[in-house]
C-alpha cells in the first residue's frame, strides 16, 4: 500500500471536502482517514489516503491537486507519508 497525506488549508466555504473527494474517487485513490477542524475561521483538513491504485504518477496527482486547490481557493498538498514517518518516528 502506498499511503500519502493530503492537507487542505484555507478559508472555509461550502463544498471543499466534496470537491476533493470527488477528485480522489475519480483518480482511484482510497480515503483511509479524515480529520478536520476549523481554526480561526480557517479550514484545516488532513486525509490519509491509499494511492497504490491511483491513475497516473504520484507527482502528477500532486500537481493536479494543487491546481484543484487554486480553483477552490485553498491550499492543497499531497505528500508521500514517508516524509512524516521518517521525521517523527525512529
Amino acid at each position: 500500500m502506498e499511503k500519502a497525506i493530503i492537507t487542505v488549508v484555507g478559508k472555509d466555504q461550502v463544498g471543499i471536502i466534496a470537491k476533493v473527494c470527488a477528485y480522489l474517487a475519480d483518480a482511484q485513490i482510497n480515503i483511509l482517514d479524515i480529520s478536520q477542524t476549523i481554526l480561526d475561521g480557517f479550514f484545516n483538513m488532513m486525509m490519509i489516503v491509499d494511492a497504490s491504485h491511483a491513475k497516473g504518477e504520484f507527482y502528477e496527482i500532486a500537481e493536479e491537486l494543487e491546481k484543484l486547490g487554486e480553483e477552490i481557493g485553498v491550499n492543497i498538498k499531497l505528500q508521500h507519508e514517508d516524509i512524516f514517518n521518517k521525521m517523527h518516528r525512529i
Partner: protein
Amino acid sequence: MINLFEVAETNKMIEQENLDVRTITIGISLLDCMDANIDVLCQNIYQKITSIAKDLVKTGEAIEKKYGIPIVNKRISVTPIGFVGASACHSTDDFVKIAHTLDRCAHVVGVNFIGGYSAIVSKGMTKAERLLIESIPQAMRETELVCSSVNVGSTKTGINMDAVKLIGEIVKETAELTKENDSIGCAKFVVFCNAPDDNPFMAGAFHGVSEADSIINVGVSGPGVVRNAIKTAKGKDFGELCETVKKTAFKITRVGQLVAREASAALNIPFGIIDLSLAPTPAVGDSIADCLQEMGLERVGAPGTTAALAILNDQVKKGGVMASSYVGGLSGAFIPVSEDQSMIDAVEAGALTLEKLEAMTCVCSVGLDMIAIPGKTSAKTIAGIIADEMAIGMINQKTTAVRIIPVVGKDVGETVEFGGLLGYAPIMPVNEFSCDEFIDRGGRIPAPIHSFKN
C-alpha cells in the same frame, strides 16, 4: 499513525522556516575518460557526464513533488581535473578546454553547478597540476557553472606553501579577469586544507579518487528551522538548548536521508553520504547568524560567538549522526558572510571582523567563506590569510577553506552585489601589516606531530 500535529509541524518547517534539501550531488569518476589526446579526453568526459547525469534534474523534481519538499540544487562533482588532464594537457589552454567541456555538460543536463576543476597538491605539485592552477583565472572567466578548488594542505602532509603563494596570485588574477562583474570569479574558487572526497557543496565539491564510479551525496540544510527551535528554549540552560538543537537536527537529517535513498534508487546510483551542514541563504530567516543571536548574543561577533557556534555545530552533528548511518562531506555550520543576511548586518554594525571569523572557523566547517576584501589587498597578504586558515585545519585535523574575493576597484565602506544565492557583501578591512617575507620563503610546512596533544 501520523497525526495532524506532526503533519502541521513538518509543513510549517517547509513553508515558513525554509526547510529544504540543499543539494543532490552526483559524484562522477572521470578516471576512465583519460586519454593522451585532449579532444578525445573532452569527448569522453562529455559522453560520461551527460549519460550518467541525464535524469538527475528530472528525478530531483519528481522527489520534490512526492514529498512536498524543495530540493534547491542539483549538482555534479567530478574527479579532480588535475589528475584527469595530466597526460592530455600541455598548456593552460588545454585545461581551459576541459573547463568548457564541463560547462557544456552542466548546461546540457541542467544542473546548477559542476565542481571538480581541482587539484590536490597538499604535498607537491605535478607539472599538470601547476598548469591547472594557472588556468583557473581564465577558466573562471570563460565558464559560468564550473567551480574550482585546490587542496593545499592536510594534517598528514603539512602545508604546501609554494602552492599557497601561487594561489594568492591566482585569486588576485581571477578577481582582475572578472572585475566587470565585481570579481565574481573568486566566488567559484575555494582553497582547502583536508578537503573531503565526498563533499556535495560548492564551490569545493569534487569526486575523490577513493570514491566509486558514481555516487549520490546529499546536503541538507535548515538554519531557519533550528533558529525557531532555539527560540522555544529561550532562557533555558545549556543542557536544554543542546537537546533542542539535537532533536531538530535529527528531523532535518532524516528528510535528507529519505531524499538520498529515493534519488539513489531512482537513478540506480549508489548512495554515498549525507552532509549535515547547516547552510544559510540570503533569504530572511535562513541564517546561521540568527541561530547564534537567538542563543543570546546581541550580534554575531560579540564575545561568546565562538562558543555558541561550537554548540550549534556539535549538536547538529550529534542529532544528524543518529538520523543517518553514512555521514560525510563537510558536516558543520557554514558561515559565509555574503549569503547570510544577519552576518552582513553584523559586519555593517562593526560587530564582526575578519579576525573573529577566523576564530569561528576553528569550531565549525568550513572556513573564511564569501568574504569580500579591498581590491588593493596584495597577493601575499591573501596568501597569508590562506596560510593562517590552512594551519587551523592542519593542526586541528579538520577541513578548513578560504573563499575570499578581493573586489577590484572597491574598498572598505563599499558593498558588492553577487546576486542570487551568493548574495551581497560589505567589503571588510584586512590587516595591512606585511607578511611578504614569510610567504616568500617557499617550500612546505611539515606535518604536525600527532601525539602529545594539548
